[in-house]
């Protein structure tokens, strides 16, 4: 291996916003010292802009999004739920919480309005492509039933609180920040003594001029609520849907699997009914996601298991739909060790890395103070570990739930108007979730550009533009960095991976992709 490895024992110096440089959104550093996260970027450093008059909306279906001061004015409100309990009724819940079905829309009037105007039969017919004549597919009937049952039901818990309030929504908040946060969104409270956002730590998501709609779902295997989440996101006018999580494994069940598991126990008719009940809603969910993706892109994380196929729904990505499966690329341009790979990967985006030491590779953090004791060299020399791959320490800087209930634990009360403990407002983030959020930001930039040219693009169109413009080499953030390690090959389970298996079309290129959006 090259001698450059020796350099890795020193902490790498990376620009705090290297992920924005990597996607061609921020001017790459000029080879001097990397900039600290607090340092404001000049407007001329921003390489991609679309006039703010063209609106964009990203729906994030995840754990909920907290109101971070850098998201002020960017979160779509909802009409009925309240944020948490024991607060004044005027406290606004941002987005919708679908942990429990009846709290979807707690106000009867609003509920009826949605069913009539947004999720009407005509709307469903258009989005789910009901046949012009003849019977609907069984999954389409199932979706209509789910919508009718949940949105048509009378509600008597007006003002019901949502669990996804300011507490414990860090994952969704970090994703939302990567899309749309900006320190310039901050509105200082009158007594904070801060005169302008310029006094605060700098932050910038990919497209701070777009809005975010948070749709919270639980991890309970409930296909009905996940179907509602996608339909709600689409009906509220989302231009891009970000799904930085996985679907329950039932989505991949085939009816036969159910049959095998239960064949000995149930009679023929029981089996048929049970099969329908168990499998049909999942099929309806899959078909709903595919149908929605035909109209707007659905950006999904490939998953963090280092497996040979992305998780669902990323594994449904194909050129004829608008699902975009995003893999993670680390700072050095190598696959993040956890990122799933294989034919299903659409595109890659920057993220962090994780240490591994197995038969395939030794990828260890040499800046760790305990590293000197690690005998990995013995195993590499004996070829017990196939190759040595440099570990990239650089993570993705993201925003955190303010106060004590986020990723970074502090004693601050998280008062949005005061930055008494700045570390409470930021966190190091990563995974294919972060990569997917970055791509969603690029996709909404493209949608806003498309609107400036006449109208938004469909899911498959955005997917194709992203793939056509993705970078296969010469990653901008590495342009002026000397002494980069020799990446060598990336092995998993004894097999060297090709570029396409790791990154699909390549590293997402915001500048080129937005440029490529034509009328």
């Amino acid at each position, binding site marked *: 291996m090259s001698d450059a490895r020796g350099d890795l024992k020193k902490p790498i110096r990376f620009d705090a916003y290297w992920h924005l440089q990597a996607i061609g959104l921020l001017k790459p550093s000029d080879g001097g010292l990397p900039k600290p996260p607090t340092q404001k970027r000049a407007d001329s450093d921003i390489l991609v802009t679309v006039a703010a008059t063209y609106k964009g909306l990203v729906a994030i279906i995840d754990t909920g999004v907290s109101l971070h001061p850098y998201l002020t004015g960017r979160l779509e409100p909802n009409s009925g739920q309240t944020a948490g*309990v024991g607060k004044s009724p005027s406290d606004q819940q941002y987005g919708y919480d679908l*942990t429990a079905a009846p709290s979807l829309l707690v106000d009867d009037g609003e509920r009826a309005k949605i069913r009539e105007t947004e999720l009407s039969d005509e709307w469903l017919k258009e989005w789910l492509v009901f046949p012009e004549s003849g019977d609907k597919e069984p999954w389409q009937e199932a979706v209509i039933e789910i919508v009718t049952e949940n949105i048509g039901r009378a509600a008597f818990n007006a003002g019901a609180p949502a669990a996804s309030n300011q507490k414990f929504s860090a994952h969704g908040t970090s994703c939302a920040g990567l899309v749309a946060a900006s320190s310039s969104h901050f509105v200082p409270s009158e007594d904070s003594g801060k005169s302008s956002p310029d006094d605060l730590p700098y932050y910038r998501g990919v497209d701070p001029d777009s809005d975010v709609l948070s749709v919270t779902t639980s991890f309970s*295997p409930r296909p009905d609520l996940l179907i509602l989440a996608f339909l709600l996101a689409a009906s509220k006018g989302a231009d891009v849907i970000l799904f930085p*999580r996985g679907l329950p494994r039932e989505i991949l069940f085939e009816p036969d699997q159910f049959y095998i598991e239960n064949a000995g126990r149930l009679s023929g008719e029981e089996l048929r009914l049970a099969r329908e009940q*168990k499998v049909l809603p999942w099929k309806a969910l899959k078909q709903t996601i595919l149908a929605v993706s035909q109209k707007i892109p659905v950006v999904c994380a490939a998953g963090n298991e280092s497996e040979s196929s992305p998780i669902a729904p990323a594994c449904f990505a194909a050129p004829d739909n608008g699902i975009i499966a995003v893999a993670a690329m680390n700072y050095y341009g190598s696959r993040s060790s956890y990122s799933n790979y294989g034919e299903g990967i659409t595109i890659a985006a920057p993220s962090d890395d994780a240490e591994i030491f197995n038969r395939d590779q030794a990828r260890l953090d040499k800046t760790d103070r305990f590293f000197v004791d690690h005998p990995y060299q013995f195993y590499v020399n004996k070829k017990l570990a196939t190759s040595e791959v440099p570990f990239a320490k650089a993570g993705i800087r993201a925003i955190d739930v303010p106060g004590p209930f986020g990723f970074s634990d502090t004693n601050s009360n998280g008062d949005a108007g005061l930055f008494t403990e700045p570390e409470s407002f930021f966190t190091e983030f990563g995974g*294919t979730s972060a990569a997917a959020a970055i791509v969603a930001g690029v996709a909404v930039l493209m949608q806003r550009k498309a609107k400036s040219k006449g109208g938004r693009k469909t899911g498959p169109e955005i997917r194709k533009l992203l793939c056509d413009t993705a970078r296969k080499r010469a990653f901008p953030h590495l342009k002026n960095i000397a002494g980069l390690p020799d990446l060598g090959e990336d092995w998993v389970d004894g097999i060297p991976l090709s570029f396409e298996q790791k990154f699909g079309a390549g590293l997402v290129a915001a500048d080129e992709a937005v440029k490529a959006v034509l009328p």
Partner: protein
Amino acid sequence: MTGNLGVNAGAFARSATVLNKNKNKNKNKNKNKNKNKNKNKSFNDAGSQSAFGLSPYREILRLHYEGNRVDKNFVANESGGYFKWQILPINPPPGPKKTMEEAERLLDKQRDPLRKEKREAIERQDTMDLSDFTRPLGIEDVVGYDETMALFSTVLQITEYVGLQYKDMFGRQRPNMVQPMLRPLLPVPPHLSYPSNHSFQCHSIALVFERYFPQHPATEELHRIAAEVAENREWAGLHFASDTEAGQRLAELFLPYLVDACAEQMRAALAEWI
């Protein structure tokens, strides 16, 4: 129909979510986090009480916070108005015909040879042994998860307190009172049937856990375990299927109040994981 659809060990790997990677990522942070946690520890720390079987009085008090009161003009009672979590919109139990049908399904389960296999789990779960949850989380008999255990214990106690109120409100008889041919595997509890508290409690644990630590690979599996524990009460002949379903709905609707009451404990529990 089936209790084992969801609990299939072979497919476990598939259930991993994209969220789970932060656990590895934060390896180096761990040292600091733990330091922090010990520093902050004081007698006043949330939690630890209920780990010793004491009543989680702070959390129960929080449920009775004035902000949780229902507007008296909406529904009134003699004690100054209901709390919102006392009148959550779950469907009342079904009528007698549907109930008899449900009892028939329980007889089917009683005849099913699978019941024998489930007996051991049913007996273990009767006393709400937490190992069904702590084992997939990898913290069974592991030192250092006191706050998590305390939180689970708190959730069990609070949901029991709340669930019993709903049982009294609906007053549904146990299945063996409706269908005497049922032979419950366990002593029939001296309280009512609807909604199932086992279902309410287990789904609450799964929901609370995913609220504060969705990155854990077993997050989704906890929901299946909750469903299995709840359904085992049907196999035992103690609950109708609609009891189980109502327990789950109650858990979903009660979650915001539970998170509000347990927030400090959840925070302390989270610090054990990241």
